[in-house]
């Protein structure tokens, strides 16, 4: 994949939030990331995620990074 090309990582933030009965606003307050940035992440428009953000999300949602995102093989779609 070329640098800057579309990625094939799916973020499962909405599923994790639903499983834990949390809203995006609550998560935003807990991890200290703006709702705008969390929406970007949730909708798959983020280009990169900082380890500090990932750590805060895993702590708040009590999950592993692998629960938060997965790789989707574009060629199989």
């Amino acid at each position: 994949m070329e640098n800057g090309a579309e990625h094939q990582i799916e973020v499962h933030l909405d599923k994790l939030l639903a499983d834990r009965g949390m809203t995006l606003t609550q998560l935003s307050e807990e991890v200290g990331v703006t709702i705008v940035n969390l929406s970007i992440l949730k909708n798959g428009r983020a280009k990169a995620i900082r380890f500090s953000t990932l750590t805060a999300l895993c702590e708040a949602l009590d999950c592993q990074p692998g629960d938060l995102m997965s790789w989707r093989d574009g060629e199989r779609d």
Partner: protein
Amino acid sequence: MSDEQEAARWLPAGDDPPERGLTEPLGNVVWAFLCFVVAGLVAAPIIALTDRQFTIYGFGHRGVCADVAQNGLDIRSSGSTVANVRAGASSFADSLQLCANHPTLGQRFLVTLTQLPTLILYLAVLVLLWLLVLTVRRHGPFTMSVSRRLRFLAWFILGGTLAVSGGESAARAAFAGTEVAGFGASFTDSANTVLSNAFNGVLANLFPLLLVVCGLLTLARVVRRGTQMRDDLAGTV
């Protein structure tokens, strides 16, 4: 993509526009020069019409003069120009001033062509620089519009300077042709002299011109790369 959309894309939500100091000292200097040139353009025709001792851009009540290159002119004596030159030293004038004491309209027009294009070019470059400053102030330094403006400025300065220096030199040679008898024995000679003067005028400015143009084009590429990096940064959560 419009500038507004672009600004929204590059500036994260809630960010203020870039600080004004980022465009200084260029912003204040360009603004001062613009005011000075515009004031001069407004005042000059008024002074030229009212003051009998004043001639500007070929128009006024007095005769008109133009600095002309020696190329194509026969210089009387050895060409030495400075009196009391010490032994072992010599002096030669590269250009001299020719004046028409009772100029025709055509001569006035030629003198105008030897001076006004430079002023118009300076004014146009100042306006483009001012637009560049405004773009940086509104949308930030690393946007595609800033890169585009830098690239346009570079090509405009290159084309404008070549055209103006060539044109003014040709106008000087043509004015000299109206003042000096036998300047160019035939039409072909005269045209050749005008063309060679124009070519020399272009060559005189070529080295600093190329440096400025290459610098601006490189800066445009740097800004373009910075824009891509900022795009990546804006997508980082």
